[in-house]
């Protein structure tokens, strides 16, 4: 019996880590390429969850609704990028951080206005359970992990094998040089931002059945996402993956040991990591000030 709890705990941590990864990768990419801190990714996360929930209640097609959630988040991020971020890419980091916080707060207000304040339960696409070492595990959580793994692979391939991906990687190193080569960097920025927004929306849509859909959901994960990005090191994709799963496990297994630890343990971990290595586990030297 004791072993069962730990196995389901690990699976729970893995699925949580996957959601954190999908969310944090957007923030990390935006930081790496454009040197912005895009807190509004958490708005696209809430939006993705809400759109997926609404479409699901109408059509009863869970996977299509998740796709719709990601698409809606992508469209919203495109609008925000064109209207707001396009004008402020050149500004300093804290400036974008505060502006995007304004977008996040405003968006949460808009969501409250449209969908109301009451948290709503979203239905789970796959109800089935599968036994791993004799422990019943919900299949949906495994699918979430698989999707996150697929996204990581896709990003990895896109950045290393395609010409656009290579341009993005080069721009992370030195934007001016890439612009000098005749690449329209603003197009790269838009592409990355919308991609990040879609991934955040996907995270929200996937997370919705596991938690309740509620207007504050974006704000609730802010500390965790930040922690993932910081522990991994801003701008590093591999670091984000490692730290997302690390944080997921710490939250999940920590709660098994001592319930209040669940929310606190990762922050203690972050504090320790930052004080020992101020740029995070895989942080680049570029950021040292």
């Amino acid at each position, binding site marked *: 019996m004791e072993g069962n709890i730990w196995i389901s705990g690990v699976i729970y941590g893995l699925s949580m880590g996957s959601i954190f990864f999908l969310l944090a990768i957007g923030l990390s990419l935006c930081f790496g390429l454009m040197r912005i801190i895009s807190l509004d990714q958490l708005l696209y996360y809430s939006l993705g969850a809400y759109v997926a929930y609404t479409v699901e209640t109408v059509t009863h097609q869970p996977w299509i609704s998740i796709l719709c959630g990601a698409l809606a988040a992508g469209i919203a991020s495109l609008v925000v990028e064109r209207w707001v971020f396009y004008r402020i890419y050149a500004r300093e980091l804290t400036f974008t951080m505060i502006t995007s916080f304004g977008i996040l707060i405003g968006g949460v207000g808009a969501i409250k206005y449209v969908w109301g304040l009451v948290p709503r339960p979203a239905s789970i696409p796959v109800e089935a359970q599968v036994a791993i070492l004799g422990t019943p595990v919900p299949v949906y959580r495994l699918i979430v992990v698989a999707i996150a793994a697929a996204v990581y692979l896709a990003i990895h391939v896109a950045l290393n094998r395609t010409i656009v991906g290579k341009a993005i990687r080069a721009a992370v190193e030195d934007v001016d040089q890439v612009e000098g080569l005749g690449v329209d960097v603003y197009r790269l920025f838009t592409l990355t931002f919308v991609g990040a927004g879609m991934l955040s929306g996907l995270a929200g849509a996937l997370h919705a059945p596991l938690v309740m859909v509620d207007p504050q959901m974006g704000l609730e994960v802010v500390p965790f996402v930040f922690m993932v990005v910081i522990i991994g090191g801003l701008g590093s994709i591999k670091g984000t993956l490692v730290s997302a799963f690390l944080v997921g496990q710490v939250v999940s297994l920590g709660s098994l040991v001592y319930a209040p630890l669940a929310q606190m343990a990762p922050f203690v971990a972050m504090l320790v990591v930052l004080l020992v290595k*101020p740029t995070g586990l895989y942080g680049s030297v570029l950021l040292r000030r």
Partner: protein
Amino acid sequence: MRDLEANALILKRALLERMLSTLKWWAGVLVPFGILGLAGWVLPLPFVIEVLIFSMYTMACNFLLGRLGFISFGQPAYLAAGAYGTAFYLYYFGTNPYLGIAAGILTGFVVSTLAGAVFVRLRSDYFALVNLALTVIFFYTLQKVLAPITHGDNGLWFLDRMQNTPVLDLTAPRQLLVFAWLAALVIWAFYKYLDGTVFGACCLATKTNEDKVKFLGYNDFAIRWTGFVIANTTAAFAGSLYGIYFGFVSPEMASAARAADPVVVTILGGTGTLYGPLVGALAYVGMKDLISRLVGNWEFFVGLLLVTIMLAGEKGIWGTLQPIFQRWAWRWTPEARE
């Protein structure tokens, strides 16, 4: 003989100028506070008290952001430190609200000294997030870990335990207003005074170029640490006033959802300007009051306003108004016209 007269004249003029500048200094302090103090008799009392306390909270953040260049998303931790210091004293030990405030300030001082020693080595973004982490740790410590002492989410109620004090009775709202007014005035004058000192200049210098400060022989770390402790002790003071005002504290005070409020208000008012925190707090509390009464969701409008202000050039309300006022002042002073 003539020389002596001339000297006396010069001396007199210098003295007059000195007096005039002192007068100007204090006029700059007293005029806005006079207006705020008078507002206490016109506007609803809770509103003015809230504005005063919030402006103190914002002044701390303004000093961090505008003078030291630290952006902190962890101010609620220090606010809660002050509030809980006061609450513990009033709930478990004594009944004198003034000693309660002293206990709150002391707690804030200790917490910020300890935290500052490790935090100020980090720079802007990481600093913001480490402070956020501290806030979350505080929140869960107060809510869950120390639940037997803090009563978790129910909070500590000590409104009835506060005894009446002879001069300014903090249990009476009107006199609490006077106290909050005085406190805000003193804090504000203190920050204004700091701006003119060597320490204030050093703070600004570490913000602009810390290497140069080191080369000039100043202890960069000590300057930032001192600045951090000063600012967050102020935040703790504001927290203990909140505690006294509500007669109640709960872990909600250290909630991470409110972490960005002081930063937002600082920027709303105008970062680094002296009047910014006052104007920002007034605008923010007023807007929250008004909008939540009219529409019910203030977040949307606050967000919209924030984005608009940032796109308009991040100068904030006071930063935008200041040049206009200055132009008026120019027009009205006779010497300037010559």
